[in-house]
């Protein structure tokens, strides 16, 4: 093996490790934004969706996504199942942590009232089937969206919008937490520790420096410049997302809202994930600002108008901003974007891709969750929910003094 190949492999493995650490970030954001009586349940969900995902994606998921494409719709399951291809282990690792990210997004949206068993089964099917199939449309060279020229560099839609769309369906089917809506009015259920939530956002931000720049999948030669540029576009979008969310809440709520600003960071990062390699720094800044503004209104809309209870804002951050960021590639891409003289063609392809993947993620999630609802059920009992999931589902409290 030559030095360049070894360097590329090393970069993919380091970046993959950063993405793995995002699991810690998700755990912290979710626990911080919810009540202390459910912390243990959230720890277990985030830990186990990664563990289940690691096995499921190795066994079947990877092959379904990257095996030789059948009609552009799915990968050949027989090609890489029970993966043991010595030359591509780094690829399996990098893709596994991405699959686990898509799965773990759902955890936050249905926090504090969902049965643990139900979540485990849903999480398994997410990394086994739902995520790999839509992923194969884009990231498998033979996928139908890949052939159309759909751009989703690191997964605004493939990872985040899939997780966000599944979250929307899941949160709607599970129903709101007890006390969230009374007399048709939305009530605030403040999270128990915003410090934990803030640490989680910082960790996610760090993880994104693996998520996006790592998706270059190489660092040797001129790749190094591309990687460095993606660091900048990623960082600018996150910063702009936070700035936008902070000023919007400052204007509308009179005070700069902490949890919304934290969501703003994530909104910007999710938004730029699709276009981080295709847009200029100013384009990334604009995507971040647009997503940071959108996330605030989206969270309010889903909460107050749709009356879907999403304690951490996963649907808005990952679903709405993921879809929006992907579509905005058609506007800001320096090659083919609307603002760079590329006309509407790219914008059209981006929109088709988002709609198709969104429909798949929602449809497939609905089928799975509907069957689970009719069989083992989605929710814990009223008593379990009020006492807290920790003590009933796991037999212990997280905070013992």
């Amino acid at each position, binding site marked *: 093996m030559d030095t360049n190949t070894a360097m590329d492999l090393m970069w993919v493995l380091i970046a993959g490790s950063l993405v793995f650490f995002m699991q810690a970030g998700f755990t912290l954001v979710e626990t911080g934004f919810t009540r202390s009586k459910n912390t243990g349940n959230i720890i277990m969900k985030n830990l186990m969706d990664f563990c289940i995902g690691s096995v499921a994606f190795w066994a079947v998921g990877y092959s379904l996504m990257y095996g030789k494409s059948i009609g552009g719709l799915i990968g050949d399951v027989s090609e890489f199942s029970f993966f043991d291809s010595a030359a591509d282990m780094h690829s399996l690792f990098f893709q596994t942590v991405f699959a686990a990210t898509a799965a773990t997004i759902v955890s936050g949206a249905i926090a504090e009232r969902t049965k643990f068993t139900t979540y485990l089964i849903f999480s398994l099917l997410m990394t086994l089937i739902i995520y790999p199939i839509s992923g194969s449309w884009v990231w498998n060279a033979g996928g139908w969206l890949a052939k159309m020229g759909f751009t989703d560099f690191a997964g605004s839609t493939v990872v985040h919008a899939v997780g966000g769309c599944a979250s929307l369906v899941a949160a709607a089917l599970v129903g709101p937490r007890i006390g969230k809506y009374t007399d048709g009015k*939305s009530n*605030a259920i403040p999270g128990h520790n915003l410090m934990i939530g803030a640490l989680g956002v910082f960790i996610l931000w760090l993880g994104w420096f693996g998520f996006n720049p790592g998706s270059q999948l190489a660092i040797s030669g001129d790749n190094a410049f591309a990687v460095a540029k993606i660091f900048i576009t990623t960082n600018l979008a996150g910063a702009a997302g936070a700035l936008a969310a902070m000023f919007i809440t400052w204007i*509308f709520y009179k*005070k700069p809202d902490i949890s919304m600003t934290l969501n703003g960071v994530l909104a910007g990062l999710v938004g730029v994930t699709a276009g981080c390699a295709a847009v200029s720094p100013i384009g990334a800044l604009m995507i971040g600002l647009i997503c940071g503004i959108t996330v605030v209104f989206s969270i*309010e809309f889903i909460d*107050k108008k749709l009356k879907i209870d999403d304690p951490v804002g996963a649907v808005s951050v990952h679903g709405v901003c993921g879809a929006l960021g992907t579509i905005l590639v058609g506007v800001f891409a320096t090659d083919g974007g609307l603002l760079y003289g590329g006309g509407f063609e790219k914008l059209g392809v981006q929109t088709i891709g988002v709609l198709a993947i969104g429909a798949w993620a929602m449809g497939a999630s609905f089928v799975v969750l509907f069957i689970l609802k009719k069989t083992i059920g989605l929710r814990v009992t009223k008593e379990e929910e009020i006492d807290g999931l920790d003590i009933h589902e796991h037999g212990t409290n997280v905070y013992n003094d």
Partner: protein
Amino acid sequence: MKKIEAIIRKSKFDEVKTALHQIEVNFFTYWDVTGVGNEKEGHVYRGVTYSTSDIQRRYLSIVVSDPYLERTVEAILKTAYTGMVGDGKIFVSEIQETYRIRTKESGTDAVN
């Protein structure tokens, strides 16, 4: 002997404590409490405006010998005052007996 219980604003605690030390009331107990009152505090959480009547205050429990009663109450009335709704309340009750565990002293020898 009397027990003086006072519910005061947390923001006024340092002033009250200093005033009590000045009149040689040197030991007392306090803890943070949540109560329900007339005062409503407005909050916004993730875009949802809500007002709460759950109010955070500090609860002081002071046991004094009879000669100290009046000046203790006066010190609290003076220093815990802002004039706005929610300044709190003072309760005075009779204490039958007091023992100091270390020295086995009892009665007024054992209090402020």
